[in-house]
């Protein structure tokens, strides 16, 4: 096709993609049709830069019921129950309108989970903000946190965990990743594929307006300086309507009326109808005049691409329409049959008695572009010796400074704005290594966490990818859970730049290796690219959301020291790794060098050992070692339990800074009342173990320093966030 005959606005498609659309259509698409191609072939919906790489992730295990490809993944947790979960990003909208952007992000991921037939039981959120001294940061934090709480609290789903990081690379491009975990019956998991012809297609939920048109393509474009001007209409969330939608859908799902169901998320009616048709191998015909609308005069293009929230599309068994209508009427929601499945293999959209769009479904989906984008790998950074980082002059001052820093301070200011207890099943909410939520009415509990250390990924994408998976696995093990599966959110810059593509593929390869080695398959995920402002990318941030299972919640532990006199034992090998550590940043102002490597075999041994000892009741407190190393972990345990500790042992072969603050992987600090049998068991399991001292008192006593009182530690740890936010 010649350039002249292409329209000026290709809606984000490349000229070659536009030409392919024309050849599929056999003619030039009209505006509505072009809109359909544009959203379906956007990065967000088609994964065109990552599809070939995502395929390399391990996705199966005997307990996996549903891997990637549906609205969310599902694992078997026994007793006929499944755990359904996924993570999703809402980065760009949250930057533009932090409250609504974050709120609708949370709403969207919950919809993905209950579309599968699961009742959401917990939410988590992984947040990345710019530097604290960036003038926008406070306002963004305030809005995002309020929005997450506003939506989740109203839905009655506890928000039990997450993470918050700061880095200047997120100044113009924050990350808001939301994860939802739900529970379904294994025999009642719902999918999107509309098997069968002549079946009624029903629209339910909120009415359609002109909200967020082209949100999916926006999520696939880089922010320029003019982002503030060009943004499309913001979507406003209505958590109350979604609470009704949740209850109504679950009520209908308890009957046998539904053949297939798909939420309307990104690209709204377009992607939901195309997905249902494509997965069911059928055509679909819809009449836009029957779509419940809250505005007048909407064009076919607008209705098809609207991203109005709180809507669902369902394919019903013929004859069950009235039963469905009755349930939706009870919950005061719109419900309308807007079309039916056909044997034409085409998506046919009618409006005002005319065909407004007609697109063959199979080629639209199967011929979606997939690119093997050029990539370059960055040279591996050099390993830095602990002795190359200056030793702290004053251990006490260093510890207080680290605990009171934006990176390590308490996130209480954030999570007290989330209802973490609604549902009366939250056994361990925010503040622990992993949250624990009881499976209602049983002895079982699900453990959940989100993790990523972007500075490691930036330094070495492959190691950083491995580390993110290992850390999630470790956090689940630290509470006594058996890690079962993960979801991931790949937040990267512009994939058309080879160095970004190199980061992405490196991280993905690392993630794949770790999840294979730890039997921790990937069951769902999301990709968010083009996270750049004026050509500067964010730190590569592949967030891992992990879920594990505990058979009896009495056999779990928290990270707080609670028993006077318990011995403190360090598990795992310590070398004093300071490359890319927070101590290095504190001491030198920068993070450089290679990040700490993960020995996956040792990781697995240590995790399994910890889990078994917790189940055996030998551990009274357990905390994994991560940011800030041993001393920070010890202080966190003391603060969490309100009990101090005395440390006697120190490894003389390691420089003090490496010993106290090294971020060597695969380690746990545990408290036990039977250190001798515990040490013997560790030895038998091949897990390095060192006795360091014991719990007790109201301060931390370390060799060669004055005791550091818990009061001082607490005011450093709890002080930063509220003080920072109050200065708004």
């Amino acid at each position: 096709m010649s350039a002249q005959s292409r329209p000026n606005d290709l809606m984000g498609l490349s000229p070659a993609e536009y030409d392919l659309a024309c050849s599929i259509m056999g003619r030039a698409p009209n505006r509505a049709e072009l809109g359909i191609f544009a959203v379906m072939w956007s990065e967000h919906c088609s994964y065109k830069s990552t599809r070939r790489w995502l395929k390399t992730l391990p996705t199966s295990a005997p307990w996996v019921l549903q891997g990637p490809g549906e609205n969310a993944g599902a694992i078997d947790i026994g007793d006929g129950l499944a755990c359904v979960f996924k993570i999703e990003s809402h980065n760009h909208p949250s930057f533009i309108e932090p409250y609504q952007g974050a709120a609708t992000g949370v709403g969207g991921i919950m919809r993905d989970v209950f579309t599968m037939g699961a009742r959401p039981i917990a939410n988590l959120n992984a947040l990345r903000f710019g530097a604290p001294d960036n003038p926008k940061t406070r306002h963004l934090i305030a809005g995002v946190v309020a929005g997450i709480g506003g939506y989740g609290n109203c839905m009655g789903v506890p928000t039990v965990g997450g993470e918050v990081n700061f880095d200047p690379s997120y100044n113009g491009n924050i990350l808001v990743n939301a994860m939802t975990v739900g529970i379904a019956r294994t025999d009642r998991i719902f999918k999107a594929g509309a098997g069968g012809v002549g079946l009624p297609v029903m629209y339910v939920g909120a009415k359609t307006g002109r909200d967020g048109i082209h949100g999916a393509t926006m999520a696939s474009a880089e922010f320029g300086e003019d982002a503030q001007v060009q943004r499309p209409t913001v979507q406003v969330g209505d958590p109350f309507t979604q609470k009704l939608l949740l209850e109504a859908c679950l009520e209908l799902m308890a009957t046998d009326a539904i053949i297939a169901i798909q939420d309307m998320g990104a690209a709204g009616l377009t992607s939901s109808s195309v997905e249902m048709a494509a997965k069911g191998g059928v055509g679909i015909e819809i009449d836009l005049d029957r779509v419940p609308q809250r505005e007048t005069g909407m064009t076919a293009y607008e209705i098809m691409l609207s991203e109005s929230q709180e809507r669902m599309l369902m394919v019903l068994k013929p004859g069950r329409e009235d039963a469905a209508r009755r349930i939706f009427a009870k919950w005061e929601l719109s419900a309308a049959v807007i079309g039916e499945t056909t044997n034409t293999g085409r998506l046919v959209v009618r409006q005002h008695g005319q065909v407004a769009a007609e697109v063959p479904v199979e080629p639209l989906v199967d011929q979606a572009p997939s690119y093997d984008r050029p990539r370059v790998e960055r040279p591996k950074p050099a390993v830095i010796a602990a002795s190359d980082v200056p030793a702290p002059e004053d251990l006490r001052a260093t510890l207080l400074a680290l605990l009171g820093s934006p990176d390590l301070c308490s996130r209480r200011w954030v999570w007290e704005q989330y209802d973490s207890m609604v549902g009366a099943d939250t056994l361990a909410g925010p503040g622990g290594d992993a949250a624990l939520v009881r499976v209602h009415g049983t002895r079982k509990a699900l453990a959940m966490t989100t993790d990523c250390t972007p500075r490691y990924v930036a330094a070495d994408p492959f190691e950083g990818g491995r580390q993110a998976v290992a850390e999630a696995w470790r956090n689940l093990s630290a509470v006594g859970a058996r890690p079962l599966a993960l979801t991931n959110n790949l937040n990267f810059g512009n994939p058309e730049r080879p160095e970004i593509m190199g980061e992405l593929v490196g991280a993905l390869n690392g993630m794949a290796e770790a999840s294979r080695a730890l039997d921790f398959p990937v069951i769902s995920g999301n990709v968010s690219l083009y996270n750049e402002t004026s050509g500067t990318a964010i730190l590569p941030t592949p967030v891992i959301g992990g879920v594990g299972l505990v058979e009896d919640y009495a056999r779990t532990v928290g990270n707080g020291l609670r028993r006077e006199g318990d011995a403190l034992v360090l598990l795992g090998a310590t070398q004093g790794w300071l490359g890319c550590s927070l101590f290095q940043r504190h001491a030198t102002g920068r993070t450089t060098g290679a990040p700490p490597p993960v020995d996956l075999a040792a990781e697995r041994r240590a995790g399994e050992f910890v889990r078994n000892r917790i189940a055996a009741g030998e551990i009274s407190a357990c905390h994994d070692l991560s940011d800030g190393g041993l001393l920070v972990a010890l202080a966190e345990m003391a603060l969490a339990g309100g009990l101090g500790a005395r440390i006697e042992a120190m490894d003389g072969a390691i420089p003090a800074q490496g010993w106290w603050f090294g971020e060597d992987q695969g380690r746990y600090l545990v408290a036990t009342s039977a250190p001798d049998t515990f040490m013997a068991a560790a030895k038998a399991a091949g897990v390095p173990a060192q006795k360091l001292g014991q719990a007790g008192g109201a301060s931390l006593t370390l060799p060669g320093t004055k005791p550091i009182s818990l009061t001082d530690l607490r005011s450093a740890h709890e002080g930063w966030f509220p003080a920072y936010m109050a200065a708004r």
Partner: protein
Amino acid sequence: MTPVVIVFPGSNCDRDVADGLAAALGRRPQMVWHADSEIPKCDLIVLPGGFSYGDYLRSGAIAAHSPVMEEVKRRAEAGVPVLGICNGFQILTEAGLLPGVLLRNAGLGFVCRWTHLRVERADTVFTAGYTAGQVVRFPVAHHDGNFFTDPATLKRIEGEGQVAFRYCTASGEVAREANPNGSLNNIAGVFNEQRSVLGLMPHPDRAFDRALGGEDGKVLFRTLVEKLAA
């Protein structure tokens, strides 16, 4: 004893409260849908927490006008005990069954945390299981829990002994730093004049299991069951 729990479309602690009652009672309470204008014969009505109608306009305002509330008012006037927790408390003030209003928290944000409460009197059907002055722990989780009323009303409810619970420190001191939301006189819960209607912001329904962090709320449910069975 026959309790009923009123369910509004946005209630989200209806199950929690039903579980709390069931644990004390040995069977599930009956749930009544907000759109019903009838309530079965009962001797306790519970309005659970949540976001009844999204809490749009003002928390509890729209729910206070739902069909079922006419009947709740009639029963309350006839002396049937009514317990409103969190959003239930907000609804009861909006419905005029309890004095005062619940304003936006002074800190503006939603607040979810464990709080200590001082039990102000133990001679009611709700609180007879505690002793006056006892300190109990229940969590709060709300955006609008800042109890407010005009000075005359405040004087009256203080004078009449209508304050049920006050936020306090672990040692029972009614101090400013123990107040999570800015409410007047640290008021966490109030009775009507007859002490047959109780509204409170903290959640006894989240404090009936040690695995959840505390069980002081159990006493409240158990007391209701015992008192009302008699």
